[in-house]
């Protein structure tokens, strides 16, 4: 989907992709994570749309002059496509985060980079642990008068650094136990590490993969020939869709809404069986 978004820059294409992705995201967790990101997302998009025309003065359709520089419609449009593009990337990553939990992540990467995958997994676990420890240290230190909320800037910074120092000493001490526990259960022994969780591809998966790959090819080919794209510089091209544009648009629509289709089918089945 990312590649699709990179391939097409037609605003209608991008808006469709974005809307579909938002629906996909809502189907995961009712948009809980998305809502957290919403302020950042909207501020960033608005900034890009507003700033781009003032920085870039390429293009021929001049809207007005600002401090002697031309502000063009083309640059404005380009800003919009950029903003849409970035929004798509963010939404995809939010979904990615929700779907790909540690286990699946490890499964995908452990084949290629087993050590690094484990390290990442451990890091994921230890961040909240460290955070809890830092809180505990903060409480104890605050009550002995080493506060971070009173005093001048220098003392506050010094007290903050002391906390981090305690955290490091403590965590290093604890890390010895962690390595011991890993060694005791045979980590680092010779021989191949196996994996408990297996995600199998069955026949239906292959069929769907094939169909999706076909549609993907179609999109790529269409994009290659310039369909689904809009000419922005030097002069804004027409909005109009040719019939091949429509084909490309449909295949893109199917690819992006595929997760929705699967989840929706499940929901309908549940509802109907009652």
């Amino acid at each position, binding site marked *: 989907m990312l590649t699709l978004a990179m391939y097409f820059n037609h605003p209608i294409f991008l808006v469709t992709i974005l809307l579909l992705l938002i629906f996909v995201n809502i189907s995961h967790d009712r948009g809980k994570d998305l809502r957290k990101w919403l302020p950042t997302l909207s501020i960033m998009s608005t900034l890009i749309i507003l700033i781009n025309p003032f920085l870039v003065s390429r293009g021929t359709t001049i809207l007005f002059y600002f401090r002697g520089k031309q502000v063009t419609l083309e640059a404005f449009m380009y800003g919009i496509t950029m903003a849409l593009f970035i929004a798509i990337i963010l939404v995809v990553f939010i979904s990615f985060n929700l779907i790909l939990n540690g286990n699946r992540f490890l499964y995908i990467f452990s084949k290629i980079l087993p050590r690094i995958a484990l390290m990442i997994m451990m890091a994921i676990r230890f961040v909240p642990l460290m955070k809890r420890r830092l809180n505990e240290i903060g409480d104890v230190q605050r009550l002995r008068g080493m506060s971070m909320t009173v005093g001048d800037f220098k003392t506050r910074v010094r007290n903050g650094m002391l906390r981090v120092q305690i955290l490091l000493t403590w965590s290093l*001490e604890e890390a010895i136990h962690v390595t011991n*526990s890993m060694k005791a259960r045979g980590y680092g022994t010779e021989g191949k590490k196996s994996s*408990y969780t297996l995600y199998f591809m069955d026949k239906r998966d292959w069929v769907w993969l094939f169909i999706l790959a076909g549609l993907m090819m179609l999109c790529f080919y269409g994009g290659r020939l310039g369909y689904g794209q809009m000419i922005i510089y030097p002069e804004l091209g027409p909005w109009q869709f040719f019939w091949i544009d429509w084909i490309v648009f449909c295949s893109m629509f199917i690819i992006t809404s595929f997760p929705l289709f699967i989840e929706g089918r499940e929901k309908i089945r549940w509802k109907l069986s009652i």
Partner: protein
Amino acid sequence: MEIIDIKALSFQYPESDNYALDGVNFHVKQGEFVVIGGPSGCGKTTLLHLLKKEISPHGLQSGDISYIGKPLDEWDERTLIEEIGLVFQDPENQIIMDDVMQELVFGMENLGYSPIDMRLRLAEMVHTFSVEHLLHQKTTALSGGQKQLLNLLSALLLKPRVLLLDEPTSQLDPVAAKDLLMMLERLNKELGITVIIVEHRLENIFDKADRVVFMNEGKIIHDGKSREVIQQIYNRQDHRFFPYIPSISQMYLELHHAPTIDRIPLNVNEGRTELASLPSMNHVEKIENKVMNTDTEPIIEAKDVYFQYEQGSSMVLRKLSFSLNRGDFYAVMGGNGSGKTTLLKTCLGLLKPQRGSVKRFGRKLTHKSIDSVHQNIAYLSQQPQTFFIQDTIEKEMQLIAEQHEIQDSEKRIKSLLNLFGIEHLRNRHPYDCSGGEVQKAALACMLLTKPSILFMDEPTKGLDPVSKIHLQSILRKLHSDGLTILMVTHDIEFTAKTATKCAMLFDGEITAEALPHAFFTGNYFYTTSINRLTQNSQYPEALTLEEVLHSWQEHELA
């Protein structure tokens, strides 16, 4: 058949003059349940770790360790990893993965088992211990007891023949600790797994163990069946190990005129039977708390406090009201997750209640006032090492003296170090001290500023019985010198011996508040073993062994 055979084992850590183990001979038969006890630093953990080759400490080693007749070095790595399992002390630090299932299969994956094999073992184990409900949870969401169970299971999945446990219950509450011990007993009885466990809390373990071993300064001092060891310690009047003996057995040995070895009671049930044969003391009056705190000036007053950690989560504290008077030694008890620590932190002002007010010295706690009145209070957290910022205890104390402009600081530092008996640790790095020592050092540092209230969060967690007795006497002394103490704990025996007022935290509020005697007597589970023994007997209902012995003396005189 001997599964583990240790001959003349000595071990010395690098840069240390003393032997951590000094000529230890130790044999374990297949299927035995062995308990090793002894004060911190006696070498019991070193011994246990030397049995697990992958993590055996570096140092000078002499003597032989053999496993099933063959020296440990001659076995191949894989067999040893599989057949000798180890569970560590801290439940938190042994967990590596984020997800329970992933954690359970970690060992099997490392050894490259086939997926079918793993599934079979996991299914069997999860079903046997009925932990299906935990399988898809995050490891961080588990309670301490569940975490330790998870660690035990992940060791068991490799089908060990010997299970080593390093103080597995020291971080758990009494209920979880009992559950874990029952589990071990079952593994030992049903599957014939040899269990070697290093433990501090021996009150409940004597009647489960086939053998008890006591160590001191790198040597094995007592070794034999539970009752034999108890009698040995008694006959030799070996006071070093008295605190390790269950109080019921102690009571029997103290009161019985002709104790016999195979009648020494190890649990309440046996104790009841034996009690009948003990001389009765009918006419001794009922024991009651004589000390009443007459001071009613409240130092801390909490009123209708509601607290929750997150919006939408359940209320941890609910309409909680209580007051701490000057001169109290107040103990708040309650199960795990009942909100004890939350209560403590609310009183400290670290957590702000959603509703209700907390007043300290008659003033409402605000963000500012916490930072300005810190000299008056001391807070001993569950992790006392977080207190230290200097690299020796002495420097730490000097720093505090400087910060608070304390007069003749050197003299005060010295007297405090002496009071806590840690003069010899003066130049030690806090992280090089044992758990009990760090705690004492932290307390000594805090008392330098002469606080008027001491807050303690689970002060007995992970302490060996001797340190516990020491802490008990120190706290009693500090209390009699006028220090007000608020402690949250689940250590019943400790509370019974120290506190002047007890309260139970249940369902977010203080449900019962009373003097220790009124509080504990009549409880079924939530009381000391001596009390369970003396309830409805010909003895006056007592809480501690000291009380029984005291009233016994009175009876003798009468």
